[in-house]
């Protein structure tokens, strides 16, 4: 079986800073890959190459076995990749409904189909069980958790094959975090592949099938979650070396 996503030998330099060196990573359907590492390890940069926010200097990206060029976020969306950015990428001046459908509005002739969009947005937000009393106030007036939910709803609504979640629960309380966990399991059962990014091992360990650890813009190693102890993973994050018996591709 071809991987859903394969990124091969990705390198990216920002001025004098080698943000990514020769990074390779893959993702299979119905799989959750946790991407771990300190702040500045290159996790967000790597997924931004996949989401089209950055263009890599070299390397290849394959979607279901065929090579693709991802030059901008539209390209990434076209290949069925949806991203929840750490920054959330919300338009603060627009309401929740507008944000869920931003760039992909439902229209009726030439006019925005506000009613349909509101009903659909409400449905997908209900799935996340976060109470948002009015979907029609600017998201700048919402709490951090509500804003994060809007960003998640946007990514989930468009039925992605691949979902990238960069610190998706950073602003959520325990109950909402648990709902996001349930959502991840449900999407996984539907065959969606998910990259789950966090600087906190506990956030991802329970949900991930494999863990890829990064440090200083390189991949330290990729391991099956069930084969490793917490200490071993922490060792990879801190020391940047994989115990030989654990390495797997």
């Amino acid at each position, binding site marked *: 079986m071809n991987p859903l996503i394969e990124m091969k030998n990705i390198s990216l330099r920002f001025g004098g800073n080698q943000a990514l060196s020769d990074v390779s990573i893959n993702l299979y359907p119905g799989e959750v890959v946790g991407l771990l590492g300190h702040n500045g390890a290159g996790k967000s940069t790597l997924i931004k190459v996949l*989401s089209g*926010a950055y263009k890599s200097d070299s390397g290849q990206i394959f979607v279901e076995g065929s090579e693709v060029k991802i030059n*901008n*976020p*539209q390209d990434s*969306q076209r290949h069925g990749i949806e*991203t929840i*950015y750490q*920054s*959330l*990428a*919300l*338009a*603060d*001046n*627009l309401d929740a409904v*507008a944000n869920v459908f*931003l*760039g*992909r*509005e439902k*229209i009726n002739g*030439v*006019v*925005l189909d506000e009613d349909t969009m509101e009903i659909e947005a409400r449905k997908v937000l209900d799935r996340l069980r976060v*109470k948002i*009393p*009015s979907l029609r*106030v*600017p998201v*700048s*007036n919402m*709490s951090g958790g*509500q804003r994060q939910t809007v960003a998640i709803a*946007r990514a989930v609504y468009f039925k992605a094959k691949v979902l990238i979640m960069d610190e998706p629960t950073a602003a959520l309380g325990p109950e909402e975090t648990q709902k996001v966990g349930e959502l991840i399991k449900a999407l996984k059962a539907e065959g969606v592949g998910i990259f789950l990014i966090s600087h906190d091992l506990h956030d991802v360990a329970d949900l991930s099938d494999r863990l890829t650890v990064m440090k200083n813009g390189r991949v330290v190693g990729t391991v099956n979650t069930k084969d490793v102890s917490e200490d071993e993973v922490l060792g990879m994050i801190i020391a940047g070396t994989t115990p030989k018996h654990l390495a797997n591709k």
Partner: protein
Amino acid sequence: MTQPASIQPKKSFLERLPSLSILGPVVALVFMTAFFGFSTTTFFTSRNLSQILQQVMIVGVIGIGQTLVILTAGIDLSCGVVMAFGSIVMTKFAVEYGVPPILAIFAGIAATTLFGFINGILITRVKLPPFIVTLGMLNIATALTLIYSKSQTISGVPDALLFFGNTLKFGETQITYGVILMLALFTLTWFILSETAPGRHLYAVGNQPEAARLTGIPTDRVILVVYTVAGLIYGIAAWLLVSRYTVGNPNAGQTENLESITAVVLGGTSLFGGRGMIFGTLLGAIIIGVLASGFIQMGIPSTYQLLITGALVILAVATDQFTKRKS
């Protein structure tokens, strides 16, 4: 922000009320109109009111283009003189080259649209700040207008170019076609901004271009289209200008560069981008017109009008800053 997570339904009425940014200009306009209405006997005549609308027409139409630009967090300092260049192209083509009037009008609009397109390219591709690009273009368009016209006024303009100067009579009140066109353009722009996807993308880009780009909106294309459409609107304003003054005047458009920005700001549109309503600009333009007219009728020198307008602009921007900080 201290607002509780759950908002009571009661509050939703307050939320739906127009914000301070649009209430401000409405209140200002009502007060001014009342003041001039009581202070003079001539202000509330239909002749005077239609005169005000005519004076507002040019700034109003340019203000539409300026509003679109400012909604993207940009600015256009060249709008008035680009309009002047367009009016010279139109009149010169029609009068001196004997081009059929309708083609001459198209040529003028094409010229201003090209100016807008070049502004857009320099801003999106060369990544220059809008302020600098349009400041440069202000000088270039001024120079080109004077060179091309040899600083001569072009008269003997054919009727088609004067079309929008014709009037419709409603009893005592006369309204020019130009004023009707202005109102139609405002309505069309309102429709696009609030009811269509491109309008929504414009607000998103103006608020935070990077967030808009990440959601898949082609940010640069939106901005390029905005400056190009603004150029097209200045071309329409050029036709109105010729219709109103019946000549091609190379010295026109000098005050409109900044007056259009004044109208947009008075109308409550934020210079930070992403917030504002197109009809606010119409209000802003009318405020400028009412001030001018009222002061003339009270026999107050126009210098004082400048003084008041300046103070109002600062007040409007201060209000905007305050609202922004609060949210």
